[in-house]
C-alpha cells in the first residue's frame, strides 16, 4: 500500500541497514526536507549538498572509489545535463581502467512529465541514459517494483541509474512490500515526516525484508493474443488500462510488458511475445527522435522482421523543445490514454 516515494525511502533504509549504504545525498535530500518528493525522509545517512550536480556525481564517484556505497540524487533529471560527461566517466572508467576499480553508485532522479512541471520538470531521461555504456538503467512503474529495483541497484557493483516517474511517485501500490504494515495510515505515521517542525522527529521503520527485482527482468503484466505492448514507467499503467478496456469491450487481449530495466532490457520476453503475436507497439513519453523505443524497434526489425504480421508501431512524445506549462501542451505532446488505446486498437485490427 506504500506509494512509490515511500517505497524508495524504505528501500534506502533497507540499504542502510542491510546492504552497507553509507551515504544518501543530493540537493535537499537530507533534513529537514528529505527530498522534494519525500523519498529520503528520515534516513540515517541522508545529507544535503551544495547546489551542484557535478559535485554530487563527483562525490558519489569518489566515495565509491574509496569503498563507500553512495546513493545520490539529481533533484530532477532535467538538471542532469551539465554533468553528462561525469555520467560517461562513471560508466566507462571500469572499461577504460581495465577493470581496476568498480563503481558501485546509485543515482536516483525523477523522470518525465505529468506534474505540471513546465519545461524544466518534465524531461524524459531514458533516451540519454541508454546512450551511456557501462550504466544500468531501471525505471519502475509501481511502488513494489521501485522497492525491488532500488535494492537491486544498491546490490549491483556497477553504476545504476534509477529513473522515478514523477507522476507516479505518489501512487499507492495495491501490494505490500515485505514487512510493510498492512494499514497505509499506520505506515504513514511511522515513516512520513510530520508537517511543521521536524527537528526531533525520528521515523519508526518497519522490519523490512529483502525483495529484489533483478536488473534485466521485465514483467508480463497482462497476457493476450491480439498484440504486444512494450512500455515502462509512467505510460505503463495507461497501457494496462487501455489493454483492459479493449479486453472488456472488444475481447482483444494483449501482452503488456513492463520493461522495468531500460538497460539491459529483457529481450527474451519481448522476442517471445512478438513471435507469438506478430504485432507490436512500443510506448514511452520521451521525445521521438533518437528515442530508446526506436532502438527496441530496431531489435524487433533485426530479429523478427519476417515474423511480423503488421507494421510494428511506436508511440512516443513529440519532438518538441519542452513540455509547456499549460496543460494543452502536455496533452498534445505526450502520449495520453486515448492515444494509447487508439494505437492498440489500430494494431490489433489492421488486416494481416
Amino acid at each position: 500500500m506504500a506509494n512509490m516515494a515511500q517505497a524508495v525511502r524504505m528501500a534506502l533504509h533497507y540499504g542502510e541497514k542491510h546492504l552497507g549504504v553509507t551515504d544518501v545525498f543530493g540537493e535537499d535530500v537530507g533534513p529537514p526536507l528529505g527530498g522534494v518528493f519525500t523519498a529520503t525522509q528520515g534516513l540515517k545517512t541522508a545529507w544535503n549538498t551544495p547546489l551542484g550536480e557535478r559535485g554530487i556525481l563527483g562525490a558519489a564517484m569518489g566515495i565509491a572509489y574509496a569503498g563507500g556505497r553512495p546513493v545520490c540524487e539529481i533533484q530532477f533529471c532535467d538538471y542532469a545535463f551539465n554533468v553528462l560527461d561525469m555520467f560517461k566517466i562513471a560508466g566507462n572508467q571500469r572499461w577504460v581502467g581495465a577493470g581496476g576499480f568498480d563503481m558501485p553508485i546509485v543515482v536516483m532522479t525523477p523522470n518525465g512529465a505529468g506534474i505540471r512541471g513546465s519545461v524544466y520538470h518534465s524531461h524524459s531521461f531514458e533516451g540519454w541514459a541508454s546512450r551511456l555504456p557501462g550504466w544500468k538503467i531501471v525505471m519502475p512503474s509501481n511502488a513494489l517494483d521501485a522497492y525491488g529495483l532500488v535494492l537491486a541497484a544498491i546490490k549491483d557493483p556497477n553504476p545504476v541509474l534509477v529513473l522515478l516517474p514523477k507522476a507516479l511517485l505518489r501512487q499507492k501500490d495495491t501490494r505490500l512490500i515485505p514487512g510493510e504494515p498492512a494499514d497505509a495510515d499506520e505506515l504513514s505515521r511511522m515513516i512520513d515526516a510530520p508537517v511543521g517542525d521536524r527537528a526531533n522527529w525520528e521515523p519508526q521503520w518497519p522490519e523490512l525484508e529483502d525483495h529484489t527485482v533483478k536488473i534485466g527482468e521485465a514483467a508480463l503484466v497482462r497476457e493476450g493474443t491480439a498484440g504486444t505492448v512494450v512500455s515502462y514507467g509512467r505510460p505503463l499503467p495507461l497501457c494496462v488500462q487501455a489493454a483492459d478496456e479493449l479486453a472488456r469491450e472488444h475481447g482483444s487481449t494483449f501482452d503488456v510488458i513492463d520493461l522495468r530495466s531500460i538497460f539491459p532490457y529483457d529481450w527474451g520476453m519481448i522476442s517471445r511475445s512478438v513471435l507469438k503475436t506478430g504485432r507490436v507497439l512500443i510506448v514511452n513519453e520521451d521525445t521521438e527522435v533518437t528515442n530508446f523505443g526506436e532502438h527496441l524497434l530496431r531489435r524487433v526489425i533485426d530479429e523478427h522482421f519476417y515474423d511480423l504480421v503488421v507494421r510494428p508501431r511506436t508511440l512516443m512524445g513529440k519532438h518538441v523543445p519542452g513540455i509547456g506549462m499549460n496543460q494543452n501542451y502536455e496533452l498534445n505532446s505526450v502520449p495520453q490514454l486515448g492515444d494509447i488505446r487508439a494505437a492498440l486498437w489500430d494494431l490489433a485490427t489492421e488486416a494481416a
Partner: protein
Amino acid sequence: MPDMNEDPPDLEDALLRRSTRTAAPAVIRSGREVMSVELALTVFRQMLRTRALEERSIKMSKSGEAYFWIGGPGEEAFNVCLGLQVHKGRGPAHDYLHLHYRNAGVMLAMGMPMIDHTRQLAMRATDTHSRGRNFVGHYSIPAWNVVPVTSVIEVQFAMAPGTALVQKRHGQKNPLEAEGITIVVGGEAGTAEGDFETCLNWSTRPDNELPVLMLVANNRYGISTDLDTVHAHRPIADRGIPYGVRNETIDGNDPVATWNAIDRAMRYCRRERKPFLLEAMVSRLHGHSSSSGAQRNWTETDPLATFEQKLIDFGAIDTATVRALKEEAKKEADDAVVRTMKEAEPTRDDVYAFTYAPSAVDAVYPNDFTGLPEARN
C-alpha cells in the same frame, strides 16, 4: 493612477506628486547612506505594488487560477532599487538583464504592467514571455533586453559575458553609447555551480574586462538547504577577490543602502567597463515556492514593513496614505487577474510554434517547425 499599470515609472512625476508635502524631510538616512524622500516614496510605491502582485500571485496558485508559483516577496527593496536604475531599451547601448526567477519587482519598477506577469502565471496564450509555456517570473522582453529567464540555476552567469562583450565593443566604437552594462542576478545557493566562476573568469580576461554587474540575492537558503551548512562562512562577495573584481555585501532589505550600493556598482561598471560583484542579503517571506506551501514566514525581516515604518518615523508619509497606496496596488493586481482570466489559453495548434526562426537556407523548415521532416517534393 489608472495608468500606473502601463506607464514606466517616472522619477520626476513622483517628485511632483510628493512635493506638496510641506513638513516632510528632504532625505531619508540609513547609517551613512542617504536617499531623497522623493525617491524613497517612489521606491516604496513600487515595493508596495510588487508585494501586492506577489500576494495576488500566491493566491492564484492556491485558488486554482494558476498552478505553480515562485517569486520574490522579501526581495522588494533589492528588486525595485535595481529596476529603477536600469538603462532600459533594446540593443547594446542599453543594459542587458539576465534575471533570476524572483525579479517581478525589477520588471514592475521598469514599467512592466502587472498583467504581463499574471498572464504567464495563468498560462494564457497572451503571455508574451512564453505563450503559457513557462513558470511565472520567467520573463522575456526583447524591447528591454530582458533575455529569457530559465529555471536552470546559474546558466545566466555563463551567458552574461557574451552580452557584455558586445556592449564593450559597441561602446568603443560608439563613445556616445558606451554605458550599457550587463546585469546578471542569481541566488546564493546557485553560486556553487561553476557558471558563477565562469562569469568571474570571462569578465576579467586581461585587456578584456567586461561591464558585468553580478548580483547575488542571498536569502540564505536553496529550497530547504541552509547556506551555513553547505558553504564556508564567508561572504559570497569574496568570490570576486581572486579575480580582482570589486565587490560588496549589503543589506538588501534596506532600500537606502541598496539604492546607493547599486548606484555605485552600476556607475563603476558603466564608466570603468569592468565587472562588479554585489551581494545583497534579502528575505524569503513565503518560502521557496508554492511547492513548499508558500506560507508566510514571520521570522524573516520584511523590507516593506520596515521601510514603511521608517518613512513614517521620518515623517515622510502618513498611515492613511500608506493604506490608500496599498488599496490601490491591491486593486491593480486584482484587475490584472480579472482581465487575465478572461483571455484565451494556447491550443494544440501552438505546440510547435516558435521553435525555429524563418530561414532562407533551410529546405525543410523555411518558416517554423512543423513536425518531423516530411517528403515534400
